[in-house]
């Protein structure tokens, strides 16, 4: 039986105070869509004595334009998916958020929770890495910024200290010459965890030559990151379908070199090649079916 005390801080300062006091014996709850499952499964909850429910901290539920785009960790998947500014300036993230779970889960689940939980299949992580997002971590009396791909260190592992709270996600808006693609594969149409996903952002010059590319697969590498070998294939070219496929093959090679040949590799290898090729074509706005 799990027994714990529940705190509901009314503002950020209260939340940081509680974290400073209870540190490792406390767990933060935002939307609860991952935590409730972990509580039910009693997984990794042995030392948890306190739950700090931050879902009432409206000050962390923002989506706003500054120098770039700033998203509060308590912005829900629905908010992110439906936000006009996210759709316009970071469509790859809106697309990913719209695929998570079901309407009920998207109404509860938050982008901060998705990132901090750091599941390998987290749908918003790949696009955020492709957008080169940074995250703000605050503790009582201090804060720091980390690039997202450094923040997540492995499956369900991050650099978040026990007394820290993620309070912001920031990235540059995509310029007009950028195209994006997001592909996701799951076992059914909705309410299914991604087997794999891939986010692609491609910037091209006026001739259509690729200036820059971000290719980030999800549930493929032990920690999220760009596959530079794949990106390099595209940069400086006007890519065709064959090149997109080769980039996909480079992602598959990166997967195998990082994780070895596992039980799932015979399936994931051909599938990630196809998904990557399609995401690249989607980013290039060519037919991928």
């Amino acid at each position, binding site marked *: 039986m799990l027994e714990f005390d529940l705190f509901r801080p009314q503002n950020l300062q209260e939340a940081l105070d509680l974290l400073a006091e209870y540190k490792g014996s406390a767990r933060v709850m935002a939307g609860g869509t991952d935590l409730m499952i972990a509580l039910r499964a009693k997984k990794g909850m042995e030392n948890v004595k306190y739950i700090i429910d931050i879902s009432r901290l409206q000050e962390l539920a923002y989506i706003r334009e500054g120098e770039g785009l700033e998203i509060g960790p308590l912005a829900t998947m629905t908010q992110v998916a439906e936000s006009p500014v996210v759709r316009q300036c970071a469509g790859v993230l809106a697309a990913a958020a719209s695929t998570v779970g079901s309407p009920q889960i998207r109404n509860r689940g938050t982008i901060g929770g998705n990132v901090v939980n750091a599941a*390998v*299949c987290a749908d918003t992580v790949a696009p955020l890495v492709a957008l080169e997002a940074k995250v703000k971590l605050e503790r009582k009396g201090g804060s720091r910024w980390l690039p997202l791909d450094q923040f997540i260190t492995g499956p369900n592992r991050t650099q978040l200290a026990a007394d820290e709270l993620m309070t912001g996600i920031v990235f540059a808006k995509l310029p007009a010459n950028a195209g994006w693609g997001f592909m996701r594969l799951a076992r059914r149409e909705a309410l299914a965890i991604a087997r794999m996903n891939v986010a692609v952002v491609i910037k091209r010059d006026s001739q259509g030559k690729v200036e820059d590319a971000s290719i980030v697969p999800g549930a493929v590498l032990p920690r999220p990151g760009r596959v530079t070998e794949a990106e390099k294939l595209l940069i400086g070219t006007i890519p065709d379908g064959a090149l997109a496929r080769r980039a996909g093959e480079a992602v598959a090679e990166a997967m195998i070199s990082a994780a070895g040949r596992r*039980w799932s590799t*015979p399936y994931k290898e051909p599938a990630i090649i196809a998904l990557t090729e399609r995401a690249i074509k989607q980013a290039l706005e060519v037919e991928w079916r």
Partner: protein
Amino acid sequence: MDTVNKPARRVDALGKVLGESKYGADLQFEGMLYGKVLRTPYPHARILSIDTDEAATLPGVEAVLTAADVPGLHTFGTVVPNQQVLAKEVVRYLGDAVAIVAAVSPAVAEKALDLIKVEYEELEAVFDPEEAMAEGAPVLHEDAPGNIAAHHVLEKGEVEEGFAASDIILEREYETQLVEHAYIEPEAAVAVPEPGRRGITVYGSIQNPFSCRKALSRMLGFKLNEIRVIQAFMGGSFGGKDEVMSAMCARASMLALKTGRPVKMVNTREESLLEGYKRHPYKLKYKVGATKEGKLTAMKIYILADAGAYTAQTPFVTWRSVVQATGPYEVPHVRTDVYGVHTNNCYTSAFRGFGSPQIIFAQESLMDELAEELGMEPLELRRLNGYRQGSVTATGQKLDEHKVSLMEVLDKAVEKSDYLRKRKEYANQQGRFRKGIGLACSFRGCSLGAEGVDATGAMVSVQYDGSVYVFSGLAENGQGLQTIFSQIAAEELGISVERVRFMPTDTAAIPDGGPTVASRSTLMGGNAVRIAAAKVRETLLGAVLGRLKASAQELDWGNDRIWVKDDPSRCVSFEEAINEACSQGELLAALGWYKAPKVTWDDRHGQGNAYFTYVYGCQVAEVEVDTETGYTRVLKVTAAHDVGRAINPETVRGQIYGGVAQGIGYALLEEVQQHEGEIKSLNFDEYLIPGIMDMPEIEAIIVENPDSFGPYGAKTIGEPTLEMTAPAIASAVAQATGRRVRQLPLDLERVLLGRSLQQDRYKRREGGC
């Protein structure tokens, strides 16, 4: 007909959608305690000792019981009573219970479970049916040598002669998976001791109240009349709330009798998936011979079904398989062997279809494979060999007492789905996304057949204000029985459905009419209601003869009135007729009892008239496959089913939509992950069933060929609807990809690679996705 064959609104719908209907877990009683179950951590082990002292002294704990406390016998079961309500000496699967606790709250009960100390000696376990049959394998039950829970044989003709006469022989192996019913409501029951005298009343999510009562009688040591089982509203069952509910009700009852207080037990979803029985996984070897023209000459079939730890309904499930294993095709020479085999896996028992979805997947896949070898259109092969009026089945039964409508359902499904044109169109495709279309058909014996005694009853009781009770021995499990029975009662009495109130199934209110299974309710129970209502109507007619100055033959009835056929102005209202009858002291209630027509069975050769009537169906599935990922979407299912007569066309369509949805899950998604007896997928985040987004357009075609035995000609619809969806989809996928998958489900890996990767995962002990 005024009411029957019309789309009446479901009589139980409003309370359900308004949240007013009370399900098992909603029930509350004064002083009620909460029961919880401690289960074994080993799939096969000897219990050395159980120490409950510490748990029993925990504040708030009112009782802790083990097998030693069972008042009657600690086992139960319909065929072979070897299932344990509480494990006595040996546990045989991970769902086996070793102790139960009643406490003032579920939390205290759960805490008490942690304080029970059980010492086990692990025993060698076996998880594969083939290994379980081999010499030297651990034997689970002494009275089942070789772990054989059931073996059915069928011999027709001389199978080797049939193969000798064939031009082509095909041998194929198919495999189906372990599947969960996935009813939306997990198991729940409340047992209430009778105050002042020996007796217990149990309410709950109970599919078969009479089966439950019989099991309780054995385990509690109570007479049948000391036990009353009342069904609560049901959140689905699909065959799944039989043995598991008998066990739960017995445990709740023991705790209630021990404490003298009501005890509620509710399974979590995880407990439900862990303990509840599933659909049998089958391994099927088919050998078929045919002439080059496509005429079937012989079929040899060998099937292994994993029965898991206990016998439950395995002998009946596998019996339906042996009867129907050749499909609706004339095969002169047949040899079939079906074995149900014990293992230390989760036990398997009844599940909508009951031994048919497995064999239909194999036999219909085989027909398509044979057609391909012969260069024939699969439809033509079926037309050439399919049952027609007077055909003789593999069991030697001549089909001449009902309309054999296989060709009619085939034709209708094929025409509506545009099967032949699409089949040609999809034959040559380029691109990553490819479409395919496939069909499957079946014949299905209605009701219990030679499984056992087949009779049931209902009572219709007309009250003096014009309202009517209907009591039935069969139960509403979500299928729409209340509505169907209310319609039939209304039709026979000539009144509106609104006057009829269906009473919860209560073992103290009506004679035992057998279980609500085998798609038998409309056919069997419908007849019983019809008989009961007609008896009351005859009494009413008799009571008004003097007033209307007419003989009974001259009267007609309907729309809440009785009138003289030749002079409708001479009429009485339903209420006036009741008043007349009451003033004459007539009884306005009647018990209807219907006995099924005779069936026969010779167990040694598997020959006989297995069922008294059959239904026929055909489904066509259209799919689109992503050939680079294996992702398969069903685009459309066309389903033609002969139901005899649709008592309510809307509930028939509902059955078809629901059955096809379940069939799609069986085809593409559903597979209980079980490794060394341990169920890995314990909730619906991992055990995936189709959602609304996965559902295609379903075109339901109701075919009506009234049956001479059925009420108004009605037969069966519940089970046939899901049994042929998977093979239709499998053949559609085979057309799309050019490769046939012979294992269910056709998940991403099987469609892309032709095999599942799960076993590699367990072998390599790797996690991840």
